[in-house]
């Protein structure tokens, strides 16, 4: 990967933008097969203490890099704006070489009051802009909403899952929201949907008696979203969950037609954020469990007569780098089921 870099202290956004244009022009003049990627802008605003961690996460998104990444780092006590602009590209061999752009802007707390005037000039205006504020969607997000098309957030990052879901719903009114906690549920949603897809099994969806979700302690929002997805897809009315048995997790239910559906969220030991397993049980004794396993998910099915079968469903773990990359990719798509799932998940939040 080749890289051309420009940097300046005490600079302005206009100078940064001009520098980027200069870098692109010079690269293209040197090799006309180099062309800038034009997919989306990713704006990231973080405190200085998290810069290295976030930069590391961004470097692991694989092929789903934003075409222009603008990383704003806020340093306590800083009053000037310093910036680095860089373009990265593979030397073209048989075709074009796609150029990715990265801008790092170092600012102080005083700049936050007018952050939009710093970010706006350095994003590619005709492209969608994705805003990611690791650590929480606070007032910085509100300030940048005017230039944001998509907000990337992680409901699992918030200490209080209920507040995280409320905030996600608020933001959903202003922009499209890509929630990494929601993306962590994707394989679990896909596999449960597949298990109930054979036509003769679909009627069982109306006989679900209970679901349990096993999740990392810090991923309760993820578990709520998965339960909320099932509730919203199947037309259940969620009720606030209470404390789970022996004080761990949450338990309660939802109403389906006139029947009760039990819902349990159980925290378990898990190294990575997300879900560890789900179980869906029906009134006739049919039950399906999916649990993490090397190289995919371990599926167990119990037939109404009690007979158990188990097998492995193949699929590689995406890892947190992959989840973030997926978040960037999802910014170009629209998932109509997140909003209803979010609403149902909020319905499950303890009162």
């Amino acid at each position, binding site marked *: 990967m080749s890289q051309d870099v420009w940097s300046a202290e005490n600079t302005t956004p206009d100078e940064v933008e001009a520098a980027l244009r200069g870098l692109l022009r010079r690269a293209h003049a040197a090799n006309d097969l180099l062309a*800038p990627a034009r997919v989306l802008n990713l704006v990231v605003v973080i405190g200085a203490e998290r810069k290295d961690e976030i930069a590391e996460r961004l470097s692991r998104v694989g092929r789903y890099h934003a075409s222009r990444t603008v990383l704003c780092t806020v340093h306590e006590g800083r009053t000037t704006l310093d910036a680095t602009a860089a373009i990265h590209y593979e030397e073209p061999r048989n075709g*074009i070489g796609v150029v990715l752009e990265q801008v790092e802007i170092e600012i102080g707390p005083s700049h936050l009051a007018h952050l939009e005037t710093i970010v706006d000039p350095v994003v590619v205006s005709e492209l969608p802009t994705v805003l990611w504020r690791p650590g929480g969607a606070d007032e910085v997000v509100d300030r940048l909403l005017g230039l944001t098309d998509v907000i990337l957030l992680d409901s699992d990052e918030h200490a209080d899952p209920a507040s995280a879901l409320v905030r996600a719903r608020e933001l959903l009114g202003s922009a499209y929201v890509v929630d990494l906690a929601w993306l962590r549920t994707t394989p679990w949603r896909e596999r449960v949907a597949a298990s109930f897809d054979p036509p003769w099994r679909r009627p069982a969806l109306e006989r679900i008696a209970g679901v349990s979700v096993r999740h990392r302690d810090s991923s309760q929002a993820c578990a709520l979203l998965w339960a909320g997805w099932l509730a919203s897809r*199947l037309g259940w009315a969620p009720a606030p969950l209470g404390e789970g048995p022996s004080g761990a997790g949450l338990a309660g239910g939802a109403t389906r037609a006139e029947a009760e559906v039990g819902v349990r969220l159980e925290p378990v030991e898990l190294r990575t954020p997300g879900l560890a397993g789900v179980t869906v049980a029906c009134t006739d004794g049919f039950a399906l469990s999916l649990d993490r396993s090397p190289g*995919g998910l371990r599926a167990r099915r119990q037939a109404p007569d009690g007979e158990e079968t188990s097998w492995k469903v193949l699929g590689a773990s995406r890892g947190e780098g992959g989840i973030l990359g997926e978040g960037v990719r999802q910014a170009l*798509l629209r998932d*109509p089921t997140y909003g209803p799932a979010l609403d149902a998940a909020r319905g499950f939040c303890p009162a």
Partner: protein
Amino acid sequence: MTAAAAPAQENPLVEGLERLPVHPTVLVIFGATGDLAHRKLLPALYNLAHEGALPERFELVGIARRNQSHDDFRAVARESIERFSRRKPDPDVLEGLLDDMRYLPGSFDDDRVYERLTHTLAEFDDKAGQPLNRVFYLSTAPEFFPIIVGELGKAGLHAAERAETRIVIEKPFGYDLASARRLNAQVLEVFDESQVFRIDHYLGKETVQNLLAFRFANALFEPVWNRNFIDYVQITAAEDIGIGGRAGYYEHAGALRDLVQNHMMQLLALLTMEPPIAFEANRLRDEKLKVLEAIVPPRPEEVANIALRAQYARGVVGGKEVPGYLEEDGVAPGSRTETYAALRLHVSNWRWAGIPFYLRTGKELARKVTEIVVTLKPVPHLALRSTGSVGVQANQIILTLQPDEGVTIQLGAKIPGTGMRIRPVNMEFRYGTSFLSESPEAYERLILDAMRGDATLFTRNDEIEALWGIIDPILTAWREDTTTPIPQYPAGSAGPKEADALLDPGHRWNRL
């Protein structure tokens, strides 16, 4: 033919999912030790497994003549995947995929193979506690297609209780119109058309599907996409390599069968068809068929005027001297097999009447490129003077499929300065700059579609026959002409000069 009941109700859980469920399936690959399985099918299956796209219950059976054990087959499959997968395999996923692979050795006409297969399939159903869908993938030499189809029918494997049975048939589907009709009849004697998936992997390529997006997702082009605005169209599939070690295949195929009858004609159909009502298998294929039927096959006496064949002679490609076709190992002395074919076709319908469509393909040409060039008619009145410049030229829309997928629109623009001098400039769009994601291999998409029963990107029986119907008279004329010298073109050139004779006055081949 299939006994699965109609869905009792929709599955509300699939809404919003990018990866739709695939019914539990067993895939049986005939010719599992062949080159296609080795390079494409097994790596494609691994990538589907990696992405979690395979059905929740998935079994794979390989069948071939080579006498080897399940473990031997797994070892070969592992090597194929490690070598040809587009991503580095995850060891756990790879082990999971290999663990359950089965191998059945035997001759394709041996009844015992099908007895063992029946037994194996029943075993899988028992293990899964439900009947698995069955997909038979014929990745063998074409002469085995009717044999395998017949044996599957004889063994009663063409249908299953409460599960779907499908058959995927690789290309070439037939050698000419008569053999394609014969094969269709043989296949349809056993399977229903809805069970048959004739593969042309070209249709599984993102670049080819993008043609549909270009035409039917943009209002900009439709108003000019007709005989009133378009002057002529050319489709080029040029290769900068020779036949490699494939003389045995190529001597019997030639450029016309190898690329024109299938890939290039598919491009022509997608380019000229009317908008389908929906992106559904039969809607799309109905429209393709209509436009293919509008291409009137040439009469024998017309062939020399609308088609040209040629062979590459010794020359230099990329600075390296290469032998001529007749000097290649395995090529018969005096072979009349064409390594270059060019055609002029007309689509005789309301939209396209009178517009020539020029197709050309060849090996050992100057450059590897697949592109469609649509040349618009010149402006009706030119008020601008073109003195002192190359002048105003007709607009071109160039759809490049490879190597760099994209769209170029050639426009006239003023040269800076005091005069009103015009020269052509390009407005370029490259897909690679706008989608950072890696495109899946065509076979990944097509295998998944076949398992799902979506035939949109597969060729229907009537379509296959329509394609052969256009090409057949040319093949016949060329076969019967054993005396006219075959034009030669130097390897590394743009092709034979004789190809210019196919062009109408004022038209030209775009530079490679």
